[in-house]
């Protein structure tokens, strides 16, 4: 206690009239918040250990539990907020870098919420997706510049390798290690059923999951964990991770406690060692080096796989993307500053990078200005929260989107932002067998499919309203968007008109 004591952020409220002391909460909480007081025959709880993940609340059979934000407070101060003061105390106590998880929670503008979608009235008809075909199939990859003909005048099929998506939604990179075996299995199975792709992240591909390889994107990151020839050839595409929206400028962090038996074998590193990826790729110090890695990977896979280059949305993203588009990459993935992570330094997560909406708009515009937009496909993530975000992203110019936080929510994540602790009560961001088995891959994969199907229905409804019956006619169709609550500069970067214009 004393100077280092911080009052807990959340309080566990137990309705004693309802509690039957069944001790489910005690068994479910890996953080050991709940305990049974045998003398008094009541349940007690230690608020200080609570991460507010709602596991106990969700499983309490008598609805006796709720978690509330504490009303304990510092003297109010708009500059020195309670959060700021507490973080400072923690650093004064330990001398350490603050760590946190998931996406940037700060109240920056969410531009998706300031864009409005069009619908047809009178001058052209809306299209009813219940009665007419409505197409969402998307091809990702470089398109040829010229149509070539053989000696008979028939078109020669000079198409570089492509990814075919039934819906323009893919599951973004989350490594085995940062999330559990069952979480990966859920994603892989859902991707196969949905006709889309999931992404291994930088932790390699577990040998059990090679059977899903037709729906797998394998990642090559700066730590090169789990990268070998069979791994590269197993994927439908290879993603070079240059950066991540949650922590641009630094590499992946996976604490040693999550590097258990299988994870260590898949990553090809010793058990219990921290997996800290280097900040840069040490073979890529410039754009011409990236080109060499792109072509090394193409050579290793016989030019049969599209290469994705994933970059974090940073200030100069348009110029960077333009360079990447000329590097031989087939697809550029851009990750916005609200993208999630299993662990990131808090200051970086909350202060580095730019919103994906602005990054996407300026990259798409720049590639068109340069006349090279069809040399690459654009995939955006960080963060796409709903089907409306997907529609807006595609209208701004994306070919497809990546979702990860949304996918984890479908699996049961309650966004407690404590992944780095490795004690995920929902069996997602943990390697403890007792916790992992709480996530049933049958249920998990079904919930992921439900989510994507639901979004697909909603996307089709919105497309039909606009009189568009194929997703490609929405791509880059910025006239279908209007801004609200935006200034001139924001409108000009987004390339949209103001509502009413």
């Amino acid at each position, binding site marked *: 206690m004393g100077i280092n004591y911080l009052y807990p952020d959340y309080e566990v409220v137990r309705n004693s009239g309802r509690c039957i002391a069944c001790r489910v909460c005690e068994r479910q909480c890996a953080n050991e918040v709940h305990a049974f007081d045998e003398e008094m025959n009541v349940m007690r709880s230690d608020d200080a250990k609570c991460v507010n993940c709602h596991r106990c609340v969700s499983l309490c059979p008598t609805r006796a539990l709720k978690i509330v934000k504490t009303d304990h407070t510092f003297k109010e101060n708009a500059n020195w907020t309670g959060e700021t003061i507490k973080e400072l105390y923690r650093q004064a106590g330990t001398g350490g870098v603050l760590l946190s998880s998931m996406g940037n929670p700060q109240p920056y503008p969410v531009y998706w919420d300031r864009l409005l979608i069009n619908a047809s009235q009178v001058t052209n008809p809306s299209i009813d997706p219940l009665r007419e075909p409505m197409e969402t199939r998307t*091809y990702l990859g470089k398109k040829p510049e010229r149509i070539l003909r053989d000696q008979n005048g028939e078109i020669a099929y000079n198409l570089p390798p492509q990814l075919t998506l039934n819906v323009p939604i893919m599951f973004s990179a989350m490594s085995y290690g940062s999330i559990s075996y069952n979480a990966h299995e859920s994603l892989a199975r859902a991707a196969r059923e949905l006709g889309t792709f999931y992404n291994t992240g930088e932790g390699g591909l577990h040998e059990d999951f090679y059977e899903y390889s037709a729906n797998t994107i394998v990642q090559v990151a700066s730590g090169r964990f789990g990268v070998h020839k069979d791994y590269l050839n197993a994927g439908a595409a290879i993603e070079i991770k240059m950066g991540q929206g949650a922590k641009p400028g630094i590499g992946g962090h996976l604490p040693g406690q999550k590097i258990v038996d299988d994870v260590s074998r898949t990553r090809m590193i010793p058990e219990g060692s921290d997996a800290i990826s280097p900040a840069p790729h040490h073979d890529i110090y410039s754009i011409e080096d990236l080109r060499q890695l792109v072509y090394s990977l193409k050579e290793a896979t016989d030019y049969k796989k599209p290469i994705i280059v994933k970059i974090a949305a940073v200030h100069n993203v348009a110029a960077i993307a333009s360079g990447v588009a000329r590097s031989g990459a087939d697809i550029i993935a851009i990750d916005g500053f609200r993208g999630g992570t299993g662990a990131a330094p808090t200051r970086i997560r909350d202060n580095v990078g730019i919103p994906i909406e602005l990054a996407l708009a300026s990259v798409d515009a720049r590639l068109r200005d340069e006349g090279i937009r069809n040399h690459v496909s654009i995939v955006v993530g960080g963060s796409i929260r709903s089907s409306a975000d997907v529609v807006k992203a595609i209208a701004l110019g994306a070919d497809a989107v990546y979702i990860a936080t949304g996918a984890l929510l479908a699996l049961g994540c309650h966004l407690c932002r404590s992944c780095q602790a490795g004690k995920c009560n929902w069996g997602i961001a943990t390697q403890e067998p007792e916790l992992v088995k709480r996530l049933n891959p049958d249920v998990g994969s079904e919930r992921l499919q439900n989510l994507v199907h639901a979004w697909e229905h909603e996307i089709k409804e919105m497309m039909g309203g606009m009189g568009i019956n194929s997703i490609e006619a929405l791509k880059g169709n910025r006239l279908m968007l209007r801004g609200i609550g935006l200034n001139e500069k924001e409108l000009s970067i987004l390339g949209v008109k103001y509502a009413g214009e």
Partner: protein
Amino acid sequence: MQPREGQVRIPSGCAISGMFSREGKRMDGSSIIKSIATMHDRSNGLGGGFAGYGIYPEYKDYYAFHIFYDHKAAKLACEEFLEEHFDIINLSKIPTKKHPRITDEPLIWRYFVTPLHTKLKESQLDEKEFVVRSVIKINTKIEGAYVFSSGKDMGVFKAVGYPEDVGEFYRLDEYSGYCWTAHGRYPTNTPGWWGGAHPFAMLDTSIVHNGEISSYDANRRYIEMFGYKCTLLTDTEVITYMIDYLGRRQGLSYEEIANVIAAPFWSTIEGMPPEKRAKFTYLRNVFSSMLITGPFSILLGFEGGMMALNDRLKLRSMVAAEKDDMVYVASEECAIRTICPGPDRIWAPRGGEPVVVTLSTHGQNERSKESA
């Protein structure tokens, strides 16, 4: 002041009509005027126009530029540009007749030109691309000048007004050609100037269109990567550029162009025999941003041919008919029957299925005789 077309995007409903002689017979403009006049109520007096093919046999080898000038200064600047880049064989005002319902006309001039050899060589472009870029340059850089027709042996005539009045204004009964298309426009706003009327043309490709495409900005932003500049913000303009790009620059046939812009649904493609499926899948994938969605019926005129095409859901009416060597296409059957009361065959082409007609061998021979 009301914004001019190009400063705002104006949706329009419309009427279209076209007639084509496979044998290359030359018909004066009175029939096409009669045809489009039948559909008077499909326009609202805010735009009408025509395109005629085979109308300038004596200048067959020269690009015929039809230009609107807002004022004399624009004409001076434009002529200076033309003289610098082209050999001007002939220039004159386009003959018109005062008409009570056609007012506020700009200066309307016609030039028969051919690119200067030295300039063409210097540009390292092929001749057609040189002409296209020159036209785009005039239209975007010379304030008050607007080239609205730039093909060989063809011409566009358009104005703000009902199409039948526009036809009389331009004295179309004094021209004769083997193909005519016509357009009556029903814009929701006043277009502000004549450039917004249809047909829209680039080189010998001209388009009349009825519809409001929902893919407009996707198509526009894509085609602008290839040096085109959409200044009018109309569907017709962007569709013309797309067809020019796919045909002239990518070498696709008119049927292939139709398979790109009004591509069959994936479910239809899946049911095709393997070779056809491969071709359709390839075209749809490679040119995905060239797919047009939303309602349209278009009549495309080109040297020696005409194509009619509906959107893939057929959200706009369009009827075709044949009689001997003649082919007719119009928004409504009445517009055909008024000039061809007993067609041999009359049908409604299915959505996305192009009707392409071209001159017969005999017709082509007739055409080359005329110039000799």
